[in-house]
């Protein structure tokens, strides 16, 4: 039986529901159907459980009155099936029963019923129950609609973040974060957690690594990432010092970020040749150095305020230096790793970190063991992305090769200046406090294919420039640098003379010509000093193996095709020949 009754006189203010009545007893069904129809609802009827299921599929009624004991499929089973079919929609089921014992009534509820109605039927009670469940349905629908809206908003937010992230990635310099000596864990959306990891080779061959952790989450935390990344990469590649870069980032963040938003950070400058690390930490957890030789761990605490807090005149760019032998590892992290909690809300903490080092047998696997330990601690099988960890390994410069990790680095000789010359004259007021090397390096790096050689070029330029400035223009005696006290005196004289400098010049003349395999760069540096007996100096240099002074020229000679003094020694010409990688 499957009859649809049309609603009779609908009582105002009451919602018209579509109600399925399933009862195998003809007279009972007739009574119920009449009562319900008189309340103004639309009625569907079924004689057993299977029929009830079929009609449910066909009509999706709002409410079901279901007899418990029926032939074929009984009410309990029908209720379970219907509940599964309804999914997350609420379809109230009221069991019709003349069973009186508690166990049977409990069965009704267990199988998915929401209530029961006893025989003989009472019109008043039935009406009250139908109304109650109509309200419950409405409430459920409202909750669902609100939930769907929240999900929609959340999805949109995520989508917007993805778009913003894409823009960020397109603009941001990729740096050398994928260098073979760096391991890092960083959520793909970390920029919206306020975490940032940057790494760049330096023109002199070293490497800068920067970990930043902005306060807050979402867009406010991400806003600062862009300028930090831009400043870091722009300045690092041009050879600016760590102090200059930090000062510039601090200045920018102080200016653009609202009060209360700042960037806890750690920046490290790895010198592969000197086997040291120079570092600055502002507000991040202690960094660790794990020594390969004896598996010891050294800890270095933060000694500055975060970036973006102090104005530049109060900002401290003082750094510290620690020895770091080849194979040693440096660890930097956001506080997320220390705060990673387990079910009992105990933090992983510094002790957790130290335990990992204590248990470690093989330095190569520390990083993996660290992440695993956090996973075990938090009890989450999936990697929790709320923290950022970076491991940097001290390596030999050679093992890193000419890895710069930059996009389009090996693009070959397509476009860019390859045949040109330029002169650059620096006068006293400029010489006083301006470092021309970043600008010149930057200019040279525009030559396609030359960048992998930037380390050597930077070294050459730095040496020639300091000779021209210090010995030529300032007239300082390099012999002073032979002893530690003289060294200090040398630099104090240098500072004082520079400060009051009002005459003299240093002139660069650069000339680059392409060759079949790469290019030839001529660098002439000329100063207005009196010159010197350069023949004698070259001879001396060949015998000198120790000491601080005069070290530059033999080193330069190994890097170049030729080094030649001209005139009375106030001019030097270096020819640097290079081959493109491909």
């Amino acid at each position, binding site marked *: 039986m499957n009859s649809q009754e049309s609603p009779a006189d609908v009582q105002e203010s009451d919602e018209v529901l579509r109600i399925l009545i399933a009862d*195998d*007893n*003809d*007279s*009972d069904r*007739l*009574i119920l159907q*009449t*009562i319900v129809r*008189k309340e103004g609802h639309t009625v569907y009827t079924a004689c057993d459980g299977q029929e009830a299921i079929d009609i449910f599929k066909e009509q999706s009624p709002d409410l079901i009155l279901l007899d418990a*004991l029926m032939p074929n499929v009984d009410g309990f089973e029908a209720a379970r099936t219907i509940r599964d079919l309804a999914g997350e929609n609420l379809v109230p089921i009221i069991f019709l029963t*003349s069973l009186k014992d508690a166990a049977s009534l409990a069965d009704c509820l267990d199988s998915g019923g929401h209530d029961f109605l006893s*025989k*003989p*039927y009472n*019109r008043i009670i039935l009406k009250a129950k139908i109304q109650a469940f109509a309200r419950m349905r409405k409430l459920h629908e409202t909750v669902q609609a609100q939930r769907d809206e929240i999900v929609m908003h959340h999805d949109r937010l995520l989508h917007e973040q993805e778009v913003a992230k894409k823009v960020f990635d397109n603009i941001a310099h990729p740096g050398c974060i994928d260098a073979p000596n760096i391991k890092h864990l960083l959520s793909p959306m970390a920029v919206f957690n306020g975490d940032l990891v940057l790494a760049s080779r330096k023109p002199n061959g070293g490497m800068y690594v920067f970990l930043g952790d902005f306060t807050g989450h979402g867009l406010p935390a991400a806003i600062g990432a862009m300028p930090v990344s831009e400043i870091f990469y722009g300045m690092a590649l041009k050879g600016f010092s760590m102090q200059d870069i930090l000062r510039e980032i601090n200045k920018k963040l102080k200016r653009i970020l609202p009060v209360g938003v700042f960037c806890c950070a750690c920046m490290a400058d790895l010198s592969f040749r000197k086997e040291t690390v120079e570092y600055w930490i502002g507000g991040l957890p202690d960094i660790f150095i794990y020594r390969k030789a004896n598996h010891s761990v050294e800890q270095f605490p933060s000694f500055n305020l975060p970036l973006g807090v102090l104005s530049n005149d109060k900002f401290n760019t003082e750094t510290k230096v620690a020895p770091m032998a080849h194979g040693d590892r440096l660890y930097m992290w956001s506080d997320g790793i220390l705060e990673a909690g387990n079910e009992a809300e105990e933090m992983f903490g510094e002790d957790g970190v130290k335990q990992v080092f204590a248990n470690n047998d093989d330095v190569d696997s520390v990083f993996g063991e660290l992440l695993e330990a956090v996973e075990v601690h938090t009890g989450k099988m999936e990697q929790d992305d709320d923290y950022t960890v970076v491991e940097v390994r001290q390596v030999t410069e050679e093992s890193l090769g000419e890895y710069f990790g930059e996009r389009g680095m090996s693009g070959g000789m397509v476009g860019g200046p390859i045949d040109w010359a330029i002169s650059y004259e620096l006068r006293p007021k400029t010489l006083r406090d301006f470092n021309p090397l970043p600008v010149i390096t930057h200019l040279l790096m525009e030559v396609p294919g030359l960048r992998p050689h930037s380390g050597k070029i930077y070294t050459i330029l730095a040496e020639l420039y300091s000779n021209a400035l210090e010995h030529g223009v300032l007239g300082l005696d390099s012999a002073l640098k032979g002893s530690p006290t003289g060294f200090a005196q040398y630099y104090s004289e240098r500072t004082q003379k520079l400060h009051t400098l009002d005459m003299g010049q240093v002139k660069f003349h650069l000339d680059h010509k392409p060759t079949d395999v790469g290019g030839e760069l001529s660098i002439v540096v000329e100063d207005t000093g009196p010159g010197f007996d350069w023949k004698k100096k070259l001879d001396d240099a060949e015998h000198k193996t120790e000491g601080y002074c005069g070290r530059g020229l033999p080193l330069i000679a190994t890097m170049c095709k030729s080094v030649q003094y001209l005139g009375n020694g106030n001019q030097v010409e270096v020819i640097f020949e290079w081959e493109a990688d491909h």
Partner: protein
Amino acid sequence: MNPSDHVDVDSLAELKDIMEDEFDILIDTFIADSEAKIASMAEIIAASDAEELRKVAHSIKGSSSNVCAAQFSELARQLEHMGKEGTTDGAAEIFENLKQEFTCVVATLKNHI
């Protein structure tokens, strides 16, 4: 015979109000349905099938309560209880009373049509 001994006439009047035109159909349906069930119950008791007795008696108990036949419903309840206990011993006796009661109920209901 006093009709109210067998059927709650006040409640029946109320039911008649609700059912309106369908009241006659309801009574006819109830009588036909019950006759069929009583017939099958005779066979069930003869076959001493306690489980079937429980089911049929349960159905009669429910439907008779809805047409206000309290005594008829009570006898059905006793039979249902027996079936549930897994026995048909003594069922025949109660069944006889139930059949008799049904005759009275039918008479009363038909009076109200």
